[in-house]
């Protein structure tokens, strides 16, 4: 075996990926060729340098916990969906039964809570807003003094608009949206490639409610009531950073 062939196989040799016959040929050549031997030593040195612990990136402790909880949410959501379609099937079957036998059959099933329904609507609106490139905002602007007045005459309240661009949550713009049976303000923020929708409308409840996080279909949601307004935030951003966003917004309100 010559130098050229040896050099072609030397990486596989160092990785113990060569068959026995080729391995022996490489070894025999290196015994008589100082250059190839040096190349092999150099490879070994590089490989030992690569095993330095600091080259291996370890995830934060939070990631494992976060993934475990999102796996559970995912399974729960899938189960709810299956259950829902089962109920639908049962309902359809009972309707058919009514038609055939002219029997009255009333079936009552306990529905999801109003909070669950609202959360589902928030997810739908968020997803829909991102489906088309220009659907996310009606007034594209990072200036709160442009976005806030834009809502005048379109809503029966004036939503607080902040732009924490200095904390890397720049305002992208605002739009009108429809949630829980009323028109609401939707503000869009950005964190790297993640979009955040913040929905605001006057709350029905007089008392305030501190932030409540939830997860739906892989999205993180946080909602709270403050000073007579209801706030819902949703994004595919991780929970920690979304909380940070909420904190920044709350401190400015």
């Amino acid at each position, binding site marked *: 075996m010559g130098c050229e062939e040896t050099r*072609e196989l*030397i*990486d*596989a040799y160092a*990785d113990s*990926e060569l068959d026995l016959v080729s391995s022996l040929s490489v070894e025999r050549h290196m015994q008589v060729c100082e250059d190839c031997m*040096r*190349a092999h*030593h*150099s*490879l*070994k*040195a*590089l*490989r030992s*340098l*690569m*095993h*330095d612990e*600091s*080259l*291996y*990136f*370890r*995830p*934060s402790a939070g*990631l*494992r916990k*976060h*993934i*475990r909880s*999102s*796996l*559970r949410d*995912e*399974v729960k959501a899938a*189960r709810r969906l299956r259950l829902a379609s089962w109920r639908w099937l049962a309902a359809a079957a009972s309707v058919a039964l009514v038609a055939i036998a002219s029997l009255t059959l009333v079936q009552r099933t306990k529905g999801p809570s109003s909070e669950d329904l609202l959360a589902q609507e928030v997810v739908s609106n968020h997803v829909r807003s991102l489906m088309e490139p220009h659907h996310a905002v009606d007034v594209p602007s990072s200036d709160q003094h442009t976005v806030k007045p834009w809502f005048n005459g379109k809503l029966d309240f004036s939503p607080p608009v902040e732009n924490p661009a200095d904390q890397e949550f720049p305002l992208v713009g605002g739009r009108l949206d429809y949630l829980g049976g009323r028109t609401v303000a939707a503000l869009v923020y950005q964190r*790297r*490639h*993640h979009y955040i929708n913040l929905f605001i409308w006057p709350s029905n409840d007089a008392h305030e409610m501190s932030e409540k996080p939830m997860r739906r279909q*892989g999205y993180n949601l946080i909602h709270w009531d403050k000073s007579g307004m209801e706030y819902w935030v949703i994004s*595919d951003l*991780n929970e920690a*950073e979304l909380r940070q966003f909420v904190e920044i917004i709350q401190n400015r309100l």
Partner: protein
Amino acid sequence: MEDRIARFEQAILPHLDAAYNLARWLTRDVHDAEDLVQEACLRALKSFGGFRGGNARPWLLTIVRNTCYTWMQQNRSRELTTVFDEEIHSGETNECNAETLIMRGADVKQLTKALEELPIEYREAIVLRELEGLSYREIADVADVPIGTVMSRLARARKRLQQSLTGTMRKEVQLGL
């Protein structure tokens, strides 16, 4: 249902470090890597029915790798089209010997930088081989290329790393450092 998720976690969670390490090297960003590993785990859960047992690590790494590539195609497509410049990188061998590498204290910081600068498919091969200890066969499966390609990518990646390290050293010598 609980049983299924318990089995999934038992198979997958031990390899979370590997999943994150690969995503971190491919994206070169802590937050992107965290987001993508999470997404990959959800994808893995959905296709867990198709997992036939055996070593879960290459299986999970394949999903992580594909999740990262899809994301990069959408967000950083430029990084996927870097062409390995044959002219510059195959001309001079300039091998440094083992002693030089070690005695000159080619430090890990330089190596990290050199690794980050490798084109993505070379970086991927070297990370899977050196940091994850995958065999050529397993790397070929994860990256969906023939074994011969794995072999040549590894050889070129290492040559390039050696050049980067010795290059830095030569500059230091010239500057009298």
